[in-house]
C-alpha cells in the first residue's frame, strides 16, 4: 500500500502548466498574468506575477516602436539590409537578456521549488511553460515500477 500512496503523490507532480498569450493589446507579445490554479501549492502568487510582468516588460521593450527602432530600420533599408549580417537587431539583443533573466529566475526561485520555466522563444512565443523539475526523474522511476529498487529511487528523486 505505502508504495502506491507514494507513487500517487509523485504522480500529481507530473504536470506542465502553460501560460498563454494575452492578446488584449493587439499582436504585441504579452503573457497572461492570471495565476493558474495548478501552481497554487508550488509557488507564491507574487513571485509568479513578478516573473511574468518582467517578461512582458522585456517583450514590450523589444517591440517598442520609437526612435531607436526607426533608426535601425532606416539604416538597414539604406544598406539594403546587409547590415544585419554584422549587427544584431534590437529584438535579438532583448531576447538574449530575456534568456539570461529566465535562467536567473530558474536558478534562484523556481528550481528550489521544483519548477522550471522554459523560454517562450522555444515554444514559438505561444506560451511560457512551467514544468515540474522532477518530471524526468519521475519518468525513470515509474518505468522501473516493477523493480525492487523502485522505493529507493523514489527517495532519491525526492531528495533531488
Amino acid at each position, binding site marked *: *500500500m505505502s508504495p*502506491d500512496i507514494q*507513487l*500517487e503523490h509523485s*504522480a*500529481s507532480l*507530473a*504536470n*506542465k502548466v*502553460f501560460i*498563454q*498569450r494575452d*492578446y*488584449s*493589446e*493587439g*499582436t504585441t507579445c504579452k503573457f497572461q498574468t492570471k495565476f493558474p490554479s495548478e501552481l497554487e501549492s508550488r509557488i507564491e502568487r507574487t513571485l509568479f506575477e513578478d516573473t511574468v510582468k518582467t517578461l512582458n516588460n522585456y517583450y514590450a521593450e*523589444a*517591440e*517598442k*516602436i520609437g526612435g531607436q*527602432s*526607426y533608426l*535601425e*530600420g*532606416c539604416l*538597414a*533599408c539604406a544598406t*539594403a*539590409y*546587409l547590415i*544585419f549580417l554584422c549587427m544584431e*537587431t*534590437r*529584438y*535579438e539583443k532583448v*531576447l538574449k537578456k530575456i534568456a539570461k533573466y529566465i535562467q536567473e529566475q530558474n536558478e534562484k526561485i523556481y528550481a528550489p521549488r521544483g519548477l522550471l520555466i522554459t523560454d517562450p*522563444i*522555444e*515554444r*514559438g*512565443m*505561444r*506560451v511560457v*511553460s512551467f*514544468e515540474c523539475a522532477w*518530471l*524526468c526523474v*519521475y*519518468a*525513470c522511476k*515509474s*518505468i*522501473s*515500477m*516493477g523493480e525492487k529498487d523502485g522505493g529507493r529511487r523514489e527517495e532519491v528523486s525526492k531528495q533531488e
Partner: protein
Amino acid sequence: MHLGVSESMRECEYSQISTRSSTPMETPYKKRTPKKKKWESFPGRNKFYCDGRIMMARQTGVFYLTLVLILVTCGLFFTFDCPYLALQLTPAIPVIGGVLFVFVLGTLLRTSFSDPGVLPRATPDEAADLERQIDVANGSSGYRPPPRTKEVVINGQTVKLKYCFTCKIFRPPRASHCSLCDNCVERFDHHCPWVGNCVGRRNYRFFYMFILSLSFLTIFIFAFVITHVILRSHESGFLNALKDSPASVLEVVVCFFSVWSIVGLSGFHTYLISSNQTTNEDIKGSWSSKRGKDNYNPYSHGNIFTNCCAALCGPLPPSLLDRRGFVESDVPQLAPPTNGITMYGATQSQQSHMAAATPLLQQQSSEPVILTASPDDGGSLPGRTALALGGPCTSLPLGQPTPPTSTPSLSCHEATDMLPIHGHNHPHNHSHPLQDPGAHHHFLTPEEAPSPPGMLPCGSPLGHSHTMQAGFYNPASQDSLHEDSVRGLVKLSSV
C-alpha cells in the same frame, strides 16, 4: 481466443520490454539520423536550401520567371540602351539604374528566402493542454463541436481567434494558415507565387520595398528606353532606330505590361500600410465600416505616418523556427517519438503488479486496465488510440467492450473525429475557385490560393493525422498515463 489474444499481446509487450532496457528501438533511430537538423524534419511544405538558411515555398517556378524577367530586361537595358544614353545624356543614368537594380534584386531575394513569420506547430504537450482546456470548457461531453474559436477584445474590438487543426494552436490575431505552405504565418498578408513565398510579418517590409523599387525601376527603364528610341529616331528615322536597338522593343513590351500591375500593386500596398491592414483583412473586409457602424481596425496606430513607420521601420522579430538547430529527442522528459514504447513499459509494469493480485484481469490486455483506471480523464485514451494506430501490436479492436466508462467511445470518436474535422476545416477555408496566379498575382489570400493537388487533408489525411495523432497523444498520455496507472493500482487492488 481471449487468452490467445492476450498472450500475443503479452508476447509483443514482453519482447518490446526486453529490448527497451537497452533501448535498441531508440538507438537505431538515433544512429540512423545522428544529427538531424530541424529544417529536415519541418512539417510544413517548404523547401530549404543552404543547410536551412534559405526557406521558400514548394512551388518556385514563378519565382524563377520573375528573376529571369528582371535579369533579362535589366541586362538588355544595361547592354544596349545605357551606352548610348550615358554618352548622349548623362552617365548618371546607368548608375541610378544600377542602384535600383541591386536594390530590387536584394529585396526580392530577401523576401523570397526569409521566413515570413511561420508559427511553429504546437508541441504534443501544449496541444494536449489545449485539448484539456477545451474539454473543460465544453463540459467534458463526448461530442466536440467542430469550430473552435476564442474571442478576444483588442482595443475595444472583438476579434475571433480560430483554432488551427493542422498546427494545433489558437492562431494569434492576424495570423492565418497558408494552404500552399501548410503553415500558420503571423500577420499573414498573402502567398505570393512571384516571390515564391508567403508574405507575412517578417518579410512584409522587404516585399513592399521590392514592389516599390521595382515600380521605380520599371518606370525608369520604360522612360529611358523610349527616350533612347526617340533620340535615335531623331538621328536616323524611327525604323532604323528600331533596327539598331532591337532589344528596346522587348524591353518596352515587358515594362509596359509590368508597369500597370506593379505600380497598381505598390499603390494598393501603400494604402494597406497606411491603414495597417493586411491583404487578407482588406479582401475579407474585416475592418470595413460596411460590416457595422462600430467596426474599426484595432491595430491601426491612428495616423498614416505612424502606421507606415511601424510597418516599415518597426523592429524585426527573429524567426521562431530554429531551422538550423539539431533535433533533440526529448528522452529524459518526455516519451521519445517512437510510438509508445514507454507506454508499453508502463503497461508491462502495470501487468507485473497485476499478475500478483488479479490473474483474471491479466487475461485481458493491459490497455483496458489503463482505461478502467481513468475515470474521467480522457488523457490515457488517446494513448490507447495511439497504441491502436501506431503500435505494432494492434490486435485489439478499438471498441473494447471491457471498460465500463464512457470514455472509450470518446477515444474512438476522437480518432475518427480528427480526420473529418481535419478534412472539413481546410476545404471550408480554401474552397474558393482557383484564380490564375499570373493574372492577379498578388491577390492570393489563403481562400483564393490554388489548392495543390492532393491537398494535405484530402491527400494524406491518414498518414498525416496518424503520425500527428501518434505523436500528439503519446507524451500527453504519458503524463496522465502514469497518473492513471497509479490510480488504477489503487482501484484494482481494492477489487
